[in-house]
C-alpha cells in the first residue's frame, strides 16, 4: 500500500486498451494516441466518441482505443466521419490520418469536409513519408529527402514541392480551428495536448471543423534512432512546417479565452 503522502502524477490513460501497439519503438503515433485518449478521458467523453481509422500505419488504431471505431477506405475518413456525425450529431467524431491518407489519396475529401464545416475533429500525422507501405515519398516529403520512391532525394523539378497542409486547410472559410503542433519533445507534446483539448471543445460546442497537424517521427523509414529522429524533425521539418495557429475563428478565440 502506498503512503498517504503519495500522489499519482501520471498513469496510462483509461481510454487505452491493454494492448501493446504494433508501432515501431519511438514512433510518435503512440504519443498522439495517448494525448487523444487523455483528453477524451479528462472531458468525460470516452463513452461518447467514435473514431475513424485510416489506411496506413495507424490502420489498427481501433485496437488501442477503448471506444467505438470504424475503418475507412484509404483517404475517405473525412467522408465517413461526415456520414457518422450527420447521423449522430451528439457523438464526438474524429478522424486520425497520415500523409498518404489525408494529403494524397484523401485530399478531395478533407478539403470538402472542411469547406462544408463538418463538426468533426481531424488529426493529421505528418511524418513526411508513407510508413506502412515501406517509406515512399509523400506530399509532405521535404525537397531532397530520400524515400523509397525518391531514391535520389525528392527532385522538386519532377516531383514537385511538399504541401503545407495546415496552411492549406486554413484557407477554407468552413474551417474553425486549424493548427500545427509537434510531438518531438515534452514541451511541444504538452502544447499539442492543449490544442487537442481545444479541438474537441470546438466540436463539443458545435463550433465547426477542427484540424490539428501533428509533426511526427518515423524512425524506421528515416533510418534514425527514435531519439535522433526527433532531432531531425526539429532541424528539418519545423522550418518547412512551422508550428502555429493558422485559423482560429472568433468564436473559438472566445472559447479559448474563457476556458
Amino acid at each position, binding site marked *: 500500500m502506498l503512503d498517504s503522502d503519495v500522489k499519482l502524477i501520471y498513469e496510462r490513460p483509461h481510454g487505452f486498451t491493454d494492448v501493446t501497439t504494433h508501432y515501431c519503438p519511438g514512433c510518435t503515433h503512440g504519443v498522439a494516441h495517448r494525448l487523444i485518449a487523455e483528453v477524451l478521458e479528462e472531458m468525460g467523453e470516452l463513452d461518447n466518441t467514435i473514431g475513424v481509422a485510416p*489506411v496506413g500505419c495507424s*490502420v489498427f488504431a481501433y485496437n488501442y482505443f477503448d471506444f467505438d471505431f470504424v*475503418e475507412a*477506405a*484509404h*483517404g475517405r475518413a473525412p467522408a465517413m466521419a461526415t456520414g457518422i456525425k450527420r447521423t449522430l450529431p451528439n457523438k464526438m467524431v474524429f478522424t486520425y490520418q497520415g500523409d*498518404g491518407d489525408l494529403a*494524397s*489519396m484523401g*485530399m478531395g475529401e478533407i478539403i470538402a469536409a472542411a469547406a462544408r464545416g463538418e463538426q468533426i475533429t481531424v488529426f493529421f500525422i505528418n511524418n513526411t513519408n*508513407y510508413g*506502412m*507501405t*515501406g517509406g*515512399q*515519398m509523400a*506530399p509532405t516529403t521535404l525537397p531532397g529527402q530520400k524515400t*523509397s*520512391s*525518391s*531514391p*535520389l532525394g525528392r*527532385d522538386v523539378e*519532377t*516531383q514537385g514541392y511538399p504541401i503545407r497542409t495546415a496552411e492549406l486547410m486554413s484557407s477554407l472559410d468552413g474551417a474553425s480551428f486549424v493548427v500545427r503542433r509537434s510531438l518531438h519533445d515534452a514541451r511541444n507534446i504538452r502544447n499539442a495536448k492543449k490544442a487537442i483539448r481545444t479541438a474537441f471543445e470546438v466540436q463539443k460546442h458545435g463550433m465547426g471543423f477542427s484540424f490539428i497537424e501533428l509533426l511526427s517521427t518515423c524512425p524506421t523509414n528515416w533510418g534514425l534512432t527514435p531519439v535522433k529522429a526527433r532531432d531531425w524533425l526539429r532541424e528539418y521539418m519545423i522550418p518547412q512546417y512551422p508550428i502555429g495557429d493558422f485559423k482560429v475563428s472568433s468564436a473559438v478565440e472566445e472559447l479559448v479565452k474563457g476556458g
Partner: protein
Amino acid sequence: MALELIKGNVAVAETALRVGLVSYFGYPITPQTELLEHLSARMPEIGRAFVQAESELGAINMVYGAACTGMRTMTSSSSPGVSLMQEGISYIAGTELPAVIVNVVRGGPGLGNIAPSQADYTQMVHGGGHGEYHLIVLAPASVQEAVDLTALAFDLAEKYRMVACLLMDGYLGQMMEPVELPPFAPIRTQAPSWAVGAKHPEGERAVLTSINISPPMQEIFNVKMMSRWEQIEKDEVRYKGYYLDDAEYVVVGYGTAGRIALTSVRAARAKGIKVGLLRPITVSPFPVEVLDKLVSGKKGVLVVEMNNGQMLDDVSAVVAKRVLIHFYGRMGGMVPYPDEIDAAIDEMIHGDHDVNRDARGIWLAKMRELVGTGA
C-alpha cells in the same frame, strides 16, 4: 542471356521499361509497391516519365492521358486500388486506347489483407467498370511467365487498341525466381496517327473522347468493339495443357492456383490416376473452344481457384452439365497446399458423379466444417 534471380514485381517493372515503356503512373499499395519503387529509380535514370500519383484515381487518369499520345504507358495496383481505377479503365476502353494495367491481387473484399488471392477474376475478366467493354487479361504462373506476358500485354494492347491486364497475385509479386529478362528495345519514335500530338494526314486532327452523345453512334461504336473482341477471341487465346492427351479427369486452374494444382496432378499421375491440367494463360479471352473440346468424354472437371468460384462459373457455362464439375477454392488470402488439391482430386474420382451437383454449394459446406462459420 544470363538468368537473374529477381522478384516478380521488380521483374514486371524492369521488363516493361525494356520493351519500351515511356511513362508509368502509380500509387503505393501492398503487395505490388516494389514495382512502383523500382520504376521510381529506373525511369528517371533512362529519361522516361514516372509519377507517383496522389491516388489510383489520379494514376489511371494519368495513364488515360498518356495513352492518348499513343506511347506505351502502364500502371499497377492491387485489388482496392484497382477498384478505384475501374472508372478510368472504362474511359480508356471507350476511347480505344492501348494501356497496360497490372493487378497484384490480394485478399478481400474491402481492405482485406495483403495475402495472395484470385478474388478479382470477375472484376477483371467480366469488366469491373461500367459499360460494354472487354479487357485482355493475362495470368502468369511464374516470374518468367510474368516477364513474357508483360511484353505480350504491351504488344496486344497496341495491336488492338485495348487495355491489357496482367493478373497476378501477391505470391507472384513477391516471389523470386531465376528469370531471363528481355533485351532493351527502342522506344517507338513515331506515335500512331490517331494519337494526339502525332503527325496527322493533311488537314486532320485527333480528338480522343469516350463520349458518344448520340445513342445510334454509341451503338455503332459498341458493335465495332464487339466485333474486335470476337476477332481477339479467335486469335489470341493462350493456355497451357499438362498430361491432357490421355486424361480422364481435368483440373482447371490459372496463375498460382494452376501452378499448385500442377503439383497435385503430377502426384496423381504418379499414383496412376489419369488426370491432366488445363491452365488458361488468357483468362480473357477465355479458352472456351479448347475447354469445350477437352471435356467431351471426360469423367470429371475440377476447378481450383483462390476465390469463391469465379472462373468456375465460366467453366460451368462451357461444360453445360455434360460432365461432372467439382470445385475447390480458398479465399481471403489463403493459399491451398497441394495435399488439399490431392484430396479434391480424390473426391472427384471417388465421390458422387451427379452432373447436376451444386459444385460451389458442396464445397462451401466443406469450408464451413474446415474454417467454421465465423459466428
